[in-house]
């Protein structure tokens, strides 16, 4: 059964290929069957593999399948090989399953779009790339999947390419993540150069054997890989692409920019955890990136008016939690939060997609309202997802995973009180912006009439995800046990805060956010506007709205100097050398071609003249 592992990336890839080649000639229903069917098949295979893996785990805790050697140059022998352990198993099952639900949802959401088959081809290719990334046995294959999802992300963000803004958003995502990818590539060179292999397991073993704790090479490798991770996972300082990435179709946002792709960075760090254990400085950097990102993104989410941008910032913030968990050594907690986040964030995006489509592609939450009765399915599922996101105690999945992260932060030798408090403030912000969103969209007066109600193919996946967002957290105990087969267990130290205390404080932060949101946006709707009336408040609002001015900063710091330099060098100084050579050559060519008169006597005269000169040289020498 485990031998079928290769089918998990192969089936979606075949689907993508099929749709890319014959897709435009197929009817919409056939495209939907192929596109969704391939993901369904991959999901079934991955679930079967998961069942097999859990019922009779391999002796070493991992299963490796080598298909063939990709490149063979000396000791550099990366293979097309897959590696399955508890970590990649969880990721693959969640990715394929959530992807399946989103594909199912898309069959209705994208109905009537002229790029219907193109959309499904991209989505299938994305899933194939993502699964390759997750199952890769070596870092080179992982990099292939990494770039594959980057490509698909670009294609899907700019899916409606006729609108220039979407194309620019796609380019931005591609270029910004490229900065991180370059760092990661350099990191791969560094690892291969120093440890002589790219197979992840050998690499981890070699790093463990050759590098002392805190050695500069380990720190450098850790920081470079972190660079790749922050690019793909939209963390500080490369998070600016994700909010703009909302230009893509909503299922794309759900699939790529919330549930799966952006967690690739989390996966990468968890996969190479040995390097970070050897480099406490790099690991601390991971934690700092996480905490800063989650706070900044939380603030920004509070000020957005576009429903998808609110969710985008919440995604950045939640991945910040995962990074925080990785940074404090709670590897299992990070993956656990990945799983619950995949459920509730996909749910939130899909539910918001229903709302957006119901209101004629209206994204502004201030023009929504009172949808509680109009769209009950969307409301209840969105509520479930929102509660999970904000961490409603005891009954939602998000509470369990986030609580685990907060408790680990408090009790980690790397973490401590400051990070813990930061995380708690993050909970407060999460609760605030989540309920602001829910209250503005679903409560109050109806501002835009509902024109379109979702069918079962859109409602069904949303309800399944809602159920998972509620019950997904109850597997916490067995999940942690499973994770210990692939990742090192969490070492408890530090503050000694008990789980009960941590949970209680988090619950209080959640409740506080809920109450404040209720007070501001339901009881006193004018209050928020009044806060912005003050010059300081307006400034803060603008600052947060523009994502702490990061885009402005990058524009001034990088884009404009580059454009300026490009303008100066419009005529290309270096090119003028080659142009000059060409011009000289052309001149000589014209001069030489003048001698070609086509007249026989003229040519004969040249020959005679040449003979005269040659003989003269013979005579004189």
């Amino acid at each position, binding site marked *: 059964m485990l031998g079928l592992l290769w089918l998990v990336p192969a089936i979606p890839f075949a689907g993508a290929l099929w749709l890319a080649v014959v897709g435009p000639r197929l009817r919409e229903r056939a495209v939907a069957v192929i596109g969704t069917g391939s993901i369904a098949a991959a999901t079934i295979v991955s679930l079967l593999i998961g069942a097999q893996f859990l019922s009779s785990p391999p002796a070493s805790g991992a299963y490796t399948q080598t298909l063939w050697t990709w490149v063979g140059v000396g000791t550099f022998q990366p293979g097309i090989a897959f590696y399955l352990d508890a970590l990649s198993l969880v990721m693959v099952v969640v990715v394929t399953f959530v992807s399946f639900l989103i594909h199912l949802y898309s069959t209705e959401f994208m109905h009537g779009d002229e790029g219907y088959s193109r959309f499904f081809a991209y989505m299938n290719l994305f899933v194939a790339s993502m699964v390759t990334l997750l199952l890769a046995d070596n870092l080179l294959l992982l990099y292939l999947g990494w770039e594959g999802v980057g490509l698909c992300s670009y294609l899907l963000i700019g899916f409606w390419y006729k609108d220039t803004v979407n194309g620019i958003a796609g380019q931005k995502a591609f270029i910004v993540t490229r900065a991180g990818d370059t760092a990661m590539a350099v990191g791969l060179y560094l690892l291969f150069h120093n440890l002589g292999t790219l197979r992840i397991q050998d690499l981890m073993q070699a790093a463990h054997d050759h590098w002392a704790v805190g050695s500069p090479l380990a720190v450098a490798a850790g920081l470079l890989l972190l660079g790749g991770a922050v690019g793909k996972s939209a963390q500080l300082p490369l998070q600016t692409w994700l909010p703009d990435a909302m230009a893509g179709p909503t299922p794309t946002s759900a699939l790529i920019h919330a549930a799966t792709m952006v967690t690739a960075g989390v996966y990468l760090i968890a996969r190479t955890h040995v390097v970070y254990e050897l480099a406490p400085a790099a690991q601390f950097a991971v934690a700092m990136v996480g905490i800063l990102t989650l706070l900044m993104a939380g603030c920004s989410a509070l000020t957005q008016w576009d429903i998808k941008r609110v969710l985008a910032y919440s995604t950045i913030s939640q991945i910040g939690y995962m990074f925080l968990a990785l940074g404090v050594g709670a590897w299992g907690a990070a993956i656990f939060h990945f799983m619950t986040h995949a459920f509730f964030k996909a749910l939130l995006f899909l539910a918001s997609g229903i709302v957006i489509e119901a209101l004629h592609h209206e994204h502004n939450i201030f023009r929504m309202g009172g949808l509680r009765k109009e769209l009950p399915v969307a409301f209840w599922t969105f509520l479930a997802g929102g509660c999970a996101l904000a961490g409603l105690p005891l009954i939602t999945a998000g509470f369990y995973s986030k609580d685990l992260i907060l408790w680990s932060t408090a009790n980690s030798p790397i973490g401590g009180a400051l990070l813990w408090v930061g995380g708690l403030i993050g909970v407060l912000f999460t609760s605030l912006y989540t309920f602001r969103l829910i209250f503005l969209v679903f409560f109050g007066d109806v501002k835009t009439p509902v024109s379109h109600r979702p069918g079962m193919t859109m409602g069904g996946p949303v309800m399944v995800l809602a159920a998972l967002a509620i019950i997904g957290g109850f597997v916490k105990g067995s999940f942690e046990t499973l994770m210990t087969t692939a990742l090192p267990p969490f070492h408890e130290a530090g503050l000694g805060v008990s789980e009960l205390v941590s949970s209680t404080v988090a619950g209080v932060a959640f409740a506080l956010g809920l109450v404040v949101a209720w007070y501001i946006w339901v009881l006193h709707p004018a209050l928020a506007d009044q806060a912005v009336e003050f010059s300081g408040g307006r400034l803060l609002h603008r600052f947060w709205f523009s994502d702490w001015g990061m885009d402005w900063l990058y524009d001034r710091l990088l884009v404009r100097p580059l454009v300026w330099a490009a303008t100066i060098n419009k005529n290309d100084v270096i090119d003028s050398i080659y142009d000059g050579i060409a011009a000289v050559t052309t001149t000589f060519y014209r001069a030489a071609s003048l001698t070609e008169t086509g007249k026989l006597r003229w040519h004969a*005269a040249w020959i*005679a*003249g040449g*003979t*005269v000169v040659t*003989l*003269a040289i*013979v*005579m004189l020498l």
Partner: protein
Amino acid sequence: MRARPWMFTDFCREGKMIAAFYTASAVAIIATILMLTRVNAVHALLHLIVSLLAVAVILFDFGAPFAAALEVIIYAGAIMVLFVFVVMLLNLGEAAARAERALLKPSAWIGPSILTLILLAEFLWLLGHGVAPAVQVVSQGPVEVGMALFGPYMLGVELASMLLLAGLVAAYHLGTAKSPRSEATHASHS
């Protein structure tokens, strides 16, 4: 002949040969100049034949009877017949001669004459150095030439035969390409 001692009859014979050389040279040069200045192609051809025959005499003088015979047979015979045929085929006539006369203006002669005079001066200067002024002629008959041709120059003979074959093919092609039928087949091939 090689071993024979020097005798008076030889002196007389040599004197005749030297006289023949100078006479033939003068004839060759004058005939060539006349050929160059003719406007009628047939007249020019006749002068050319005279020039070639004079050169044949010089060749014979210099102990190359075989080459002299071939000069008469092939140059003055076969090649000139080809020229005559072509001139007859073209049927140039009086109008062509008038056109030629118009082209042969004195100004057309100046540039080439200067250039070739320099060339000739260079030839003379080069020949004036390191060349034995006179030498005893030892005749090289067909036997010696044949031994050399099919001995050390075997490869050259083969190459010459290939060249003649190529010339044959090219002449055949140029001669037949004009008929409409073959042009049609050309078109269908290409």
